[in-house]
């Protein structure tokens, strides 16, 4: 519908400098240089993990016994681990697993949490029932909950993703519910109702867009939490199988060599830190970009 408005219609020139369309975008970007840097960093991280076969000299699981625990050098930029595997290759391939898990968990839990949160915030009866369940889930420590679920369902990447998604849904539900409770009371919701709009329409077209800012911030957090949680689960040996490289698995392997081979932990650690940081900064910028009120300063 917005297409009809935007396309092919000659508008009168604006009498005063109200920023519209692409000019507004440019303005926002100029105001958020950090968002551009973070976005570029994310792009590069994703690109190098996709291009891992081209960038790495060796396969991530290729064991070279003679090259055990070698420091960074021309042959092995990030050094080698206790089995003589190339850390650079493992970090790049491990990124594939970790980012995949982070992305899928973020999408699943935000998607599910948003729908539940909207219903819970808008309808009081749903609220009374569902929120008790959510409170129950929140009461248990996330990692313990995930471990016990994996215990029931069995280990594997899919299980880890499902368990982490379920664990993070309550966070999203709470955030969304809070926003909905405020917006539900605002005048324009009554206005829409008086106009004759149906409840689902109001809920999805009017209330949902207002919840997007906190959701985006939550999504970037959950993305990073999931990467960390996967690392934690793998560390405890209940996460993804040892033979699949992930940033968590690599860190786990490096634990015994923290003092003797720093490169084993530093590089995958940096990868996690850089990804998480970029995600959060990018999420903040995105939130501002989506709010028309924050654009004129």
């Amino acid at each position, binding site marked *: *519908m917005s297409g*009809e*408005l935007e396309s092919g219609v000659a508008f009168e020139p604006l009498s005063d400098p109200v920023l519209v369309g692409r000019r507004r975008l440019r303005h926002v970007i100029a105001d958020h240089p950090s968002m551009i840097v973070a976005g570029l960093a994310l792009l590069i991280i994703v690109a190098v993990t996709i291009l891992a076969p081209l960038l790495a000299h060796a396969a991530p699981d290729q064991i070279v016994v003679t090259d055990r625990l070698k420091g960074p050098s021309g042959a092995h930029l990030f050094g080698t681990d206790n089995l003589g595997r190339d850390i650079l290759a493992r970090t790049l391939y491990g990124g594939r697993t970790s980012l995949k898990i982070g992305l899928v968990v973020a999408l699943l839990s935000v998607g599910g949490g948003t729908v539940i949160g909207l219903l819970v915030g808008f309808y009081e009866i749903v609220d009374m029932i569902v929120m008790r369940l959510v409170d129950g889930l929140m009461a248990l420590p996330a990692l313990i909950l995930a471990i016990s679920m994996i215990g029931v369902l069995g280990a594997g990447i899919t299980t880890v993703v499902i368990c982490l998604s379920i664990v993070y849904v309550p966070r999203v539900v709470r955030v969304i519910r809070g926003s909905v409770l405020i917006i539900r009371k605002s005048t324009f919701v009554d206005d829409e109702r008086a*106009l*004759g709009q149906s409840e689902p329409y109001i809920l999805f077209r009017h209330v949902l867009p207002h919840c997007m800012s906190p959701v985006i911030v939550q999504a970037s957090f959950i993305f990073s939490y999931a990467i960390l949680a996967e690392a934690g689960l793998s560390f405890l040996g209940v996460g993804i199988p040892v033979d699949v490289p992930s940033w968590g698995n690599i860190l786990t392997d490096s634990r015994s060599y923290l003092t003797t081979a720093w490169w084993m932990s530093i590089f995958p650690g940096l990868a996690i830190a850089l990804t998480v940081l970029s995600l959060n900064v990018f999420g903040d910028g995105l939130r501002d970009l989506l709010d*028309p009120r924050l654009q004129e300063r």
Partner: protein
Amino acid sequence: MGETVGSETTESVLDVENLTVTFPRRRGDLTALTDVSFHVRPGEAVGLVGESGCGKSLTALSVAGLLPSDCRVDGSIRLRGTELTALSRTERRALGGKEIGMVFQDPLSALHPVLSIGDQLTEGPRRHLGLSRRAARDRARDMLDRVGIPRTRNLLDEYAHQLSGGMRQRVMLAMALICEPQLVIADEPTTALDVTLQAQILELLRTTTMDVGASLVLITHDLGVVSQACDRMVVMYAGHVVEAGRARTVITEPRHHYTAGLMGAVPLPGERRRRLQTIAGTVPQLDRMPTGCRFAPRCGSADEACRTEPRLEPTDEATLVKCWHPLPRGRAVAAVLAAEERPAEGVSDAVPSEGPLLSVRGLRREFTSGPALRRKVVAAVKGVDFDIQPGETFGLVGESGSGKSTVARMVLRLIGATDGQITFDGGDLTALRGRALRRKRRDFQMVSQDPYGALNPRMTIGHLMLEPFRLHELGPASTWRDQSVTMLEEVGLNASMLRRYPHQLSGGQRQRVAIARALAPKPKLIVADEAVSALDVSVQAQVLNMMKDLQDRFQVAYLFISHDLSVIEFMSHQIGVMRHGELVEVGSPTDIYQNAQHQYTQELLSAIPPVPWATR
């Protein structure tokens, strides 16, 4: 003013000279006040008048030293000869706390929620006068007594939320006066109060201030309030002083077009057929100030000369006017009142013979409150009956808490009624549910009070305007956009609005959009709940005129709700007076305003601030 320059200035309590306040911003400095000068003499009350955004409150904050730290203040502010701008922040606070008392618009947010009234009242005297706790409490009791709260009502250990609005404003006043300051600054002190309280509090403000020997600076948008309480007045527009002089002189013979315009915009008693005089446009925003005379773009008499800025100069009888073409003496009031008559058709008081459009019988609504086991039932509306004829306006008037809005929400079917019947357009409205109700909503629409909250801030105006057309499938989809532009033009806007967001519009423009949206499905009834209360006087006049014109054009009936008696009189064919959930009196404007039967109606009427320029 003119006469005070020179020898008398040393005797003034407050001298503000060439005060200029600038907010440095990345994209250019914003100058909010430019060369503001005025003086306050001992025992005098000076009114600062103007619409929002004109700089009244900022002037007050500058004097009180409460401006945000990132702004630049030039010029001079002297309190009894002491240059305030030269003092350090600490010195200024010490002096200001003792010598300047402040009364704000909203006493609930100005009073501390978790400190008792006693704690807050004694803080000043203990700090600035060095009194002991006991002495300070004595003084506080004394002060409360003087603002009309008897000693027997021991208020000192109560908290702000336990008090009524009028009581809170009395406490604020006591707090402002307790150190016996030289100057009291009251910023819209009665605006948030009910009509019947306004007059009382204003009188109290005036007498107690004089009592302790303080001068008063009263900030208000209401010319009636100024004429009631002030000796002299200063009219501000867009950060400039545009007119200043003796209150009575300025009000009976305004020389500046803005002052006269403000007066013309107020609905006068018994003037229902008159169109309100309006000032075109709105107060300019800080970053879009016109050069030359700042009022020129809105002024009917502007010409080439107005491209350069006029000086604030004395006219013959000691009023100062900043205008190239001041209104001539003596003709000013006549000019204000010689406004265009409305055509008689469409505003006749005769009740048409066909049946009522909306008929409300025994409407009742109860709310439950309190904890689960001790739940209390409170009736907000206790059985209300009224009819609205097609194409007419039913005005519902009453103070806050009288149940007006609850009636509106029940008529709109936003909340259910506990009991009673609403018949609309021949059908029982209370029986409709779901899809049938949503379809019927086409015929009764709503315009709400809050022009800021009534439009989804994340949608463009174009999008918002499209919604009613799509929802009710008003004509083929290809015509929706043109239809929404037509509707916007109908309310005095144009297609350039389509791509803007609500926050990029002024309050008046937003309210116009809300009205255009409500009118789009061509409803038979529009429920307007305090639809103009949040708007400035000149904008309010524009919207009221427009709503009347639209009623004539579209034959729409209004359920018009307001706390403002003069607005209700101007708009309505029938008026209902509400109090404590009951309709105490229903009648035509003539019945109500000239021959009120109920005691409460008479009370309300006597509380309307006088309109001295309406004497004919």
